[in-house]
């Protein structure tokens, strides 16, 4: 009862006396709203932003003397050990992205021509694969591609090869595993973009005498090219930071940047060098991400 009279008094009073803040209050918007963000900002600031800044700072510090130096970056650029790993990472990222585009585009295109039910089945397979742990998906390739694995037994039984083909513990195996893990990231956005293409365009093109070959290459493919470019870059970004797949399917013989960071942190304590390499990876990732956002806007 008292509560009711209180609100009855306060609210109209405010409403009449100070119109501006009152309208803001009832507009549902917050005067500032910063307090709501504060708890998360504190946590993310402490456990994400601050550590990243510290990494950046330690990349510019000499491990022994503690003085300011660019030596860590020079060491990466001049090294016969670290630089090849950076190049290998970039090379594998490009190969994986190309392969995903090459096998992902036809599948996504085929899916647009399927019936509703066919599309649901295909999407279910893709989404299932997407959400199954990367460890599980990577692990399976050991069984499939190993020396006594399914593929090799098939190859030897069919007489195509005498000795087992080495799929594992080299770049080929790592690339196959990464393509398998990353393909859903290509398929889902690409399929969504293909569905956006107005189906009437096909009819118009056919009415005007185009063959389906001409329609595809002169209308459909150019329209979906920005989406293909954007997903290509997304896959490259994700590939650059891959750790699990090269560690398991590469068996230590095909280290990528992430595996090298693991060695520099956990085996030889060379934190400042690791910080520098991690910063190089960060710049590569953020740079590619800016391009990605730009392509998404074009799309």
């Amino acid at each position, binding site marked *: 009862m008292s509560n009711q009279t209180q609100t009855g008094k306060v609210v109209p009073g405010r409403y009449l006396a100070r119109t501006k803040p009152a309208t803001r209050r009832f507009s549902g918007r917050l005067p500032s709203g910063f307090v709501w*963000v504060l708890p998360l900002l504190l946590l993310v600031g402490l456990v994400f932003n601050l550590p990243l800044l510290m990494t950046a700072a330690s990349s510019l510090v000499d491990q022994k003397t503690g003085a300011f130096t660019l030596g860590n970056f020079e060491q990466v650029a001049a090294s016969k050990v670290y630089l090849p790993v950076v190049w290998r990472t970039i090379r594998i990222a490009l190969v994986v992205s190309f392969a995903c585009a090459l096998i992902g585009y036809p599948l996504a295109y085929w899916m647009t021509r399927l019936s509703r039910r066919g599309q649901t089945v295909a999407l279910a397979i893709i989404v299932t694969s997407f959400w199954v*742990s990367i460890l599980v998906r990577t692990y399976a390739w050991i069984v499939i591609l190993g020396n006594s694995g399914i593929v090799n037994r098939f190859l030897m039984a069919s007489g195509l090869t005498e000795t087992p083909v080495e799929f594992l513990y080299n770049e080929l195996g790592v690339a196959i595993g990464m393509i398998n893990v990353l393909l859903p990231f290509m*398929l889902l956005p690409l399929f969504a973009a293909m569905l956006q293409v107005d189906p009437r365009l096909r009819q118009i093109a056919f009415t005007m005498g185009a063959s389906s070959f001409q329609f595809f290459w002169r209308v459909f493919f150019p329209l979906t090219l920005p989406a293909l470019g954007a997903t290509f870059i997304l896959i490259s970004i994700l590939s650059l930071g891959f750790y699990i797949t090269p560690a398991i399917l590469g068996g230590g013989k095909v280290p990528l940047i992430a595996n090298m960071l693991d060695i520099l942190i956990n085996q030889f304590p060379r934190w400042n060098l690791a*910080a520098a390499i*991690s910063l190089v990876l960060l710049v590569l990732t953020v740079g590619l991400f800016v391009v990605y956002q730009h392509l998404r806007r074009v799309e």
Partner: protein
Amino acid sequence: MNAHLVAARRRERWRRLPLATVGILVLLFLALPILVVVPMSFSSAESLRFPPPGLSLRWYEAFFSDPLWLEAALNSLIVGISSSTIALGLGTLAAYGIVRGTFWGRGALETNFISPMILPPVIIAVALYIFYARIGILGNYLALIAAHVVIAVPYVVLLMTLAIRSFDIRVEQVALTLGASRWQMMTRVLMPNLLPNAAAAWLFAFVISFDEVVVTLFVSGTHLTIPKRMFNQLVLQINPTITAIATILICFSLAAVALAAWLNRGNGFVSKADGEGH
């Protein structure tokens, strides 16, 4: 239908045959790991033979009778439940501030909260390792949970900003006009309405935390989680027990994601691929 049309349609089908073959082969390639791991977990053989020579549940028994695996499972559950609960609380508050607030720099802040999802996990792992080691909390359980919150919270922020944006602001206005405080409106009007979205966000955060490997490997010290132990075993040796755990994990994450997708139906999150841990 005249003969000409029938012939044209048949030609069309033949022309699509290569495309269909490629499509089916690529789908098979995607599904292959799951198709291999699940049957192998019921194998009776010691080696990784496929197809399995006989059926048994011995690898499931091996999992449930190994105290280290059970300890890892318990840790995964504790870390997953606590980090996704904290992520849901803080993330929802932040999402509300971002959507309904008027302060400067909201967009930048949202990007900052979401960026752990886009950055390679190894960068976060290195940064947290150096930071935790410097302040002497490397291997601390709470520090591990805090790291998982940061990794899981982007999914909460994404889902909850979407949900709050699509919630009719006039409902909030009515509650406020009728004298509810902002907090009352939030707990008694907004959250009950967004409960399905919040549950979905919690589940996504939980699955992300439960699957997390890279950051955990770097900062967890001696604490085991399921993915960490799986990874350590995979690098060293091939043990068929892992097929049983893998199968349990497949069922577990698919059930969680299906439930989350069902709770969050209409917002179309599951089919939108965004960064996940690698």
